[in-house]
């Protein structure tokens, strides 16, 4: 392998990402065997939360990274190259509310604004601006489904793969905002200084 350092997302994309890297001849055994260690020097891999991947790649602490399009949309000002749609980790960014008469539409009609809880404040704000609706964005860090159930907000904007968590909490999808899949990203300087190694890797992923 070249001396590329790759940022690998722990969480939902972890296992597919390791499978992809293993198929390219990168030794992922140590990463799979060890869920505390973060830096795997020999394999050239570092592991982290998906939302931290663009941070490491933008700074050059990693040459390449893999993370969801949702993360890239939320951090769209990060200067990184988006090289490939890897296809896996397919999720949909949705607007959801509790089932029955739409409380968000009701709030918008009667109060002029709807309150929307989300982990994605920038995507949400942009979406409501694009669709010409006033929304008060309430940023939460997790368990977004709780917000409409407790009256914190009328609606949520969140990422869903199967819709199971939404359903289990009595929520229904009202609108689909965007589809997100895993993406390969590159540091802008590494993209020039390690062009051959990066192009080789990209070529082999495309050829799979």
């Amino acid at each position, binding site marked *: 392998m070249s001396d590329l350092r790759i940022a690998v997302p722990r969480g939902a994309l972890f296992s597919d990402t390791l499978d992809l890297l293993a198929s390219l001849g990168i030794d992922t055994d140590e990463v799979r065997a060890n869920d505390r260690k973060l830096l795997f020097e020999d394999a050239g891999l570092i592991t982290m939360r998906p939302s931290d991947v663009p941070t490491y790649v*933008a*700074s*050059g*602490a990693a040459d390449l990274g893999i993370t969801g399009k949702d993360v890239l949309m939320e951090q*769209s*000002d990060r*200067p*990184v*190259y*988006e*090289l*490939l*749609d890897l296809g896996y980790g397919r999720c949909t960014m949705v607007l959801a509310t509790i089932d029955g008469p739409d409380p968000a539409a009701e709030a918008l009609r009667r109060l002029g604004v709807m309150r929307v809880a989300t982990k994605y404040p920038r995507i949400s704000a942009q979406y409501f601006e694009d669709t010409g609706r006033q929304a008060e964005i309430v940023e939460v860090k997790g368990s977004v489904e709780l917000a409409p159930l407790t009256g914190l907000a009328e609606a949520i904007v969140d990422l869903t793969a199967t819709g199971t968590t939404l359903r289990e909490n009595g929520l229904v999808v009202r609108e689909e905002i965007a589809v997100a899949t895993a*993406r390969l990203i590159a*540091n*802008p*300087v*590494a*993209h*020039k*200084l390690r*062009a*051959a190694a990066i*192009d080789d890797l990209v070529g082999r992923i495309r050829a799979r």
Partner: protein
Amino acid sequence: MNRPIPSGTRDVLPDEMRELRAITGALHDVFIERGYGEVYTPAIEYEAVVGGHAVDIVGGGYHLFDEHGNVLVLRTDMTVPIARVVGSRYAHAELPLRFCYAAHVYRVVRAQRGHPRELLQAGIELIGSPAAGGTAEVLTVLCAALDAVGLQGYRIGLGDAALIPGLLAALEVPPDAAQRMLAELVTRDFVGLEHEAAEHGVADEVLAAATTRGGPEVLDAAPGPLADALAGLRGVHELLGPELASRVIFDLGLARDLDYYTGAVFEVYDEALGTPLAGGGRYDDLLGRFGRPLPAVGFAINVDRLHVALAGEERGLR
């Protein structure tokens, strides 16, 4: 007690200032020695005069009102103010004109990202010296300046701002789609670029050109519609000294985020830094907007990034 200063600004204390001074001093000496006269222009300008020329995709400039209600803007670069100076103070001067500067510029950034709102740039502008010769002179000064401060492992990415637009035109991509593709190129979104290009049946050609990086051999392999722009790059390359020429990485997809570049564009990379530390290019249309249509080329070095790269090289990063 800690009294805050605005995010994205900082105080510079003697240890750092001594090193910064050594850098700007060495850069200044090279610029002067090569015949570039130092200029200083106001930090505030009329928006109506300089506005709309330096659209930085990240944010733009800070605006304020003067006591008469005129809109003022803090300069976002030195290239536009120097173009204004040439138009109004050097309207009939003999060419070429050579200017250098070291000045702070101000840019709107997203809060809490640690990006500077105030940054120190040192650079030159060469006005009235067309195409290959002018570009090669400026690149030569750039490298002499980086050598003078002791930067070792840097490389120059060299491309042409007219290259991809020319290719899209040759492929008969409709102008609005071409605009979207160029926006995706500037934001480095190759997935979006490929998607958009595929809709017009030109994904292979566009992606191949936009991702071509390497030595002079890549110029020979590139497709027909690129011939003119590539001939220009080859012309520049032939005029560079051997050491400098070996530092060049041709990058056909290089797109700088200022909208006034018309021809050759370039950036400086160093292993010790994850972000370009200098950049520039040709802006053959900008001077015309200030009343004296002249070909021009220049660069700006981000002094703080250069300082970080120097320190990184000392520590042996990579």
